[in-house]
């Protein structure tokens, strides 16, 4: 490592240059005087002695120079020298510099912005110890306990507490397994104190096993985190850990909060600690406020405990894999253990059918390094596509800058020739030109970072369906590294060709050449023209892409959703959080509805478990006499529990039979309304009215009578195929209903205060979480598509703008070089039109060539995006045509400007100039 220490000493010397010189000077002065003294001692006069010493010494300047040279670090010296020179050169042409820096900043900024999103959503790991060793059992985020992957293999993702415990106690593949509730639970401090009509905000609570934090390897900011001793006796551990964010919001960072009590859903919890800042839970895009031991489940949800119930699957299981295990081994062992446990559980009742069922089910281990990736799954493909788009925009920007530099290199030919003639090496010149490019790119990179910083919040809206998505965008080392990389690549991309070109200048002919020169090369294919053609091609590709997404969104919006959302106000409520017992629920629902329907503007009102496009789902299995299931999915249905007027209020047409009525109560015959898809699937062309079916979970009797058939509606996404759906009267399936729907003829949003007040008036034990219109809820699901299409349109237009500037630049430059020629032509009688056409023709030739390459490229690239399109093919001819025409029109305008200027040349002025 000698060279390293040596380089280090040389670099350190850079800062002491002046000191080194003065030291050497003083030292040599001393040497001279000592010599003179010696001479005097041998009898010379003072004068003579000094003179002889100087003569003897030789050339002190040369000695000094040689000595200094010993310290020189050639490479760095040159870089510094080049940078200084570059700064001076750029400062001399501020307009050029500003144009280039701005172009690059837009390109680099857009790239950094998208990468920041990708970093936050897809790349970042949980801030825990060795996240790469963490795995979660099962990938699915759906509420089902089992799901089939694309190969039809069945996996499990949710577990009962007893099953989790067995897995934990017997696992060999994992050093430890922890479990957590698969959902956040609303925890209210004191719903009774709620102001009338006001909302109350809940803390998002997660139930976790006692080893959750030790498994993750997390530390506490204050106090302590949970440990296994906090999770032994059901109901016996009223302790809570706060997230750092919640501690800041709720307790104003008061360290004394630790040790205090916090009343949540009616139980007093002792705050034992605050988790470290930065750990907001394990799901990208959502936060947990408090963590409560699993043992407190019953107290927190105010329902009987399901800790001993093997039938309730509600836990996600995560584990830290043993170091010596490969993933395959761990997966095989865990599945084996899972099978053993299920067989043990089934005991002697194992029929061949059950056995087959068990053996078909696997435990899939999915990396948990990044936590749960709700966002990761929903927006990766769009993000990656955007990354490609901004990459292309940057490419166009590079081509523009490259073009500008080429033009400048021609203008600087004299300077370069002079330097070559004076003995400057070509490699040295190349280095100098590249340093200048690097300087420009770095400035662009810095400004780009500022742009990215500013646009980060805006870009968050792109991936969120809500404006308040708690996702932290960070400019961490990875993002900065990415920006630096992009900057360097950019500098090389736009700088290499012009630098190479400049360094190859033939200085003799170039010095001899005078003025702007009549010998401007014609007919030959120049690098600048190639750049413009590729710019046109790439921007056409982007324009076509943007057009496809635009039309796709139009198609989505035009899609029938099957119901009438206009005029419906939705109110999210939480009867469970209010501490209501199940017996009180039906009375409360009736009272609230009666009160709401008394409001003059209200046409009808209803309660339901969830509404269309709320993102919530409730799946179960159905059984129908005479229907032989082909697969477990064959019996899967979606269900909802509703009050009488739900269909009418939401605007779902009833096609046959009757709706659910208030008479459908406990004790009356069990009834349901199904949708067309359900009827078609189970009963084919026969009418479903009067048929009976059963559902899983309830008693196995297939005695639910179908009294009505409702129209199919879209329930989650307008892209969906109709799902099999059943509406049950809530009175026969008592449950906590979280949604109130209110229909009015007027403005639904304006009704919100009245509705809130009415609900609060009936009961203060019914917390209102929020209100919104059903229209907004439906639109929200298209929000992402719309923003995506807007963004691609914006980028497409940016690309077109840059390409047009490029075309304008090339033509304007060629007009400037051909001034003499054009002047002669006009003097010899060429008409304005002829001249105009001559120049415009050059431009159009480039545009058509760009289109010629651009359309096939767009069609090829379109295949990658087809999964994101709706209702049209990537080869959609209308889109391609419109994009091509708009591009040609804009480009023709860009070309027209210099052509027009050429046509208006005064031949006298033009010829005088040369």
């Amino acid at each position, binding site marked *: 490592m*000698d060279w390293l*220490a*040596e380089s280090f*000493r*040389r670099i350190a*010397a850079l800062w002491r240059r002046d000191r080194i010189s003065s*030291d*050497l000077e*003083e*030292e*040599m002065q*001393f*040497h001279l*005087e*000592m*010599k003179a003294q010696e001479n005097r001692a041998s009898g010379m006069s003072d004068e003579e002695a000094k003179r002889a010493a100087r003569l*003897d*010494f*030789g*050339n*002190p300047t*040369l*000695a*000094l120079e*040689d*000595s*200094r*040279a*010993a*310290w020189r670090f050639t490479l760095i010296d040159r870089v510094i020298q080049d940078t200084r020179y570059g700064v001076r050169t750029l400062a001399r042409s501020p307009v050029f510099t500003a144009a280039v820096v701005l172009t690059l900043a837009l390109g680099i900024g857009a790239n950094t912005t998208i990468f920041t999103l990708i970093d936050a959503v897809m790349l970042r790991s949980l801030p825990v110890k060795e996240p790469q060793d963490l795995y979660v059992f099962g990938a699915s985020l759906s509420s089902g306990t089992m799901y089939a992957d694309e190969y039809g293999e069945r996996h499990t993702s949710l577990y009962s507490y007893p099953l989790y415990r067995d897995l934990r106690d017997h696992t060999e593949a994992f050093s430890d397994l922890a479990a957590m509730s698969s959902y956040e639970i609303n925890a209210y401090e004191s719903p009774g104190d709620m102001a009338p009509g006001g909302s109350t905000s809940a803390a998002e609570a997660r139930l976790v096993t006692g080893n959750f934090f030790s498994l993750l390897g997390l530390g506490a900011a204050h106090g302590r985190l949970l440990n296994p001793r906090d999770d032994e006796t059901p109901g016996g551990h009223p302790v809570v850990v706060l997230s750092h964010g919640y501690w800041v919001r709720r307790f104003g960072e008061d360290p004394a909060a630790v040790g205090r009590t916090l009343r949540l859903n009616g139980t007093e919890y002792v705050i034992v600690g605050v988790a470290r800042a930065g750990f907001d839970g394990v799901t990208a895009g959502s936060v947990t406020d408090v963590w409560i031991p699993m043992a407190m489940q019953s107290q927190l949800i105010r329902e009987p405990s399901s800790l001993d119930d093997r039938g309730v699957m509600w836990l996600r299981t995560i584990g830290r894999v043993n170091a010596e295990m490969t993933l395959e081994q761990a997966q095989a062992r865990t599945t084996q253990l899972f099978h053993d446990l299920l067989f043990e559980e089934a005991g002697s009742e194992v029929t061949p059918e059950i056995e087959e069922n068990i053996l078909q089910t696997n435990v899939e281990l999915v990396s948990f390094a990044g936590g749960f990736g709700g966002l990761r799954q929903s927006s990766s493909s769009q993000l990656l596509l955007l990354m490609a788009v901004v990459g292309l925009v940057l490419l166009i920007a590079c081509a523009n800058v490259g073009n500008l530099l080429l033009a400048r290199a021609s203008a600087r030919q004299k300077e370069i020739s002079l330097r070559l003639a004076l003995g400057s090496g070509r490699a040295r010149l190349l280095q100098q030109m590249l340093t200048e490019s690097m300087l420009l790119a770095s400035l662009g990179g810095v400004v780009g970072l500022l742009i990215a910083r500013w646009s980060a919040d805006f870009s968050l809206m792109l991936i969120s369906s809500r404006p308040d998505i708690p996702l932290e965008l960070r400019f961490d080392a990875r993002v900065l590294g990415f920006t630096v990389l992009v900057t360097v690549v950019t500098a090389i991309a736009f700088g290499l060709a012009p630098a190479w070109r400049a360094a190859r200048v033939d200085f003799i002919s170039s010095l001899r050449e005078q003025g702007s020169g009549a010998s401007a090369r014609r007919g030959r294919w120049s690098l600048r023209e190639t750049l413009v053609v590729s710019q046109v091609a790439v921007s056409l590709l982007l324009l076509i892409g943007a057009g496809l997404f635009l039309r796709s969104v139009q198609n989505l919006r035009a899609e029938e959703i099957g119901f009438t959302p206009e005029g419906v106000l939705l109110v999210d409520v939480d009867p469970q959080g209010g501490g209501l017992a199940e017996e009180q629920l039906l009375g409360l629902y009736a009272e609230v509805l009666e009160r709401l329907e008394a409001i003059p503007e209200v046409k009808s009102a209803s309660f339901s478990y969830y509404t269309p496009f709320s993102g919530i789902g409730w799946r179960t299995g159905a059984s129908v006499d005479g229907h032989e299931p082909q697969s477990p999915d064959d019996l899967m249905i979606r269900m909802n529990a509703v009050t009488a007027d739900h269909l009418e209020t939401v605007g779902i047409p009833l096609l046959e039979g009757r709706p659910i009525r208030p008479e459908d109560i406990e004790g009356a015959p069990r009834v349901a309304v199904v949708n067309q898809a359900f009827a078609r699937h189970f009963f084919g062309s026969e009418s479903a009215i009067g048929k009976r079916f059963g559902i899983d979970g309830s008693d196995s009797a297939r005695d639910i009578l179908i009294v009505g058939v409702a129209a199919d509606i879209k329930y989650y996404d307008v892209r969906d195929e109709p799902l099999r759906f059943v509406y049950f009267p809530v009175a026969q399936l008592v449950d906590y209903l979280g949604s109130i729907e209110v229909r009015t003829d007027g403005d639904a949003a304006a009704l919100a205060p009245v509705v809130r007040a009415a609900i609060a008036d009936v009961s203060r034990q019914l917390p209102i979480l929020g209100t919104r219109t059903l229209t907004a809820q439906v639109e929200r699901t298209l929000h992402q598509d719309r923003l995506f299409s807007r963004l691609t349109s914006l980028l497409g237009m940016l690309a077109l703008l840059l390409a047009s500037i490029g075309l304008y630049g090339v033509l304007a430059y060629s007009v400037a070089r051909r001034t003499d020629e054009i002047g002669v032509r006009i003097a010899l009688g060429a008409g304005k039109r002829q001249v105009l056409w001559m120049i415009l023709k050059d431009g159009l030739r480039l545009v058509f060539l760009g289109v010629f390459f651009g359309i096939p490229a767009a069609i090829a690239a379109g295949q990658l995006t087809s999964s994101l399109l709706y209702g049209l093919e990537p080869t959609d001819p209308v889109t391609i045509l419109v994009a091509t025409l708009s591009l040609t029109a804009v480009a023709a305008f860009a070309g027209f400007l210099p052509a027009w200027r050429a046509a208006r040349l005064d031949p006298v002025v033009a010829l005088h100039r040369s």
Partner: protein
Amino acid sequence: MGVIRGSKQNEFLPGTLDMLLLRTLMRGPMHGYGIAQFIRQRSDDVLQIGEGSLYPALQRLQVKGYISAEWGLSENKRRARFYRLTRKGEKQLELEVESFDRVMEAIAHVMLPG
């Protein structure tokens, strides 16, 4: 092995100047003038190191880390820069002496009559 004074070139056998400087500094810290004097006197005026070679060589040795420099007072109480051999320099000197001996031996063999 004559020396052309004031010449930029190093007329010693390649590398011998560095070796001579390092060897001289084995005696203790010295300033540049002292080093030149010492080598001249020790070689009975045969080896005269020009300042044009001396100071660049001293800088080179510093960059390589074989010697270090610090300001001090000379015999006649004047400020002068003293050079001192480092541990690394000592090791380097050993290596150079070894290879110098080998070369001298080889030359002697060649020059030997018969």
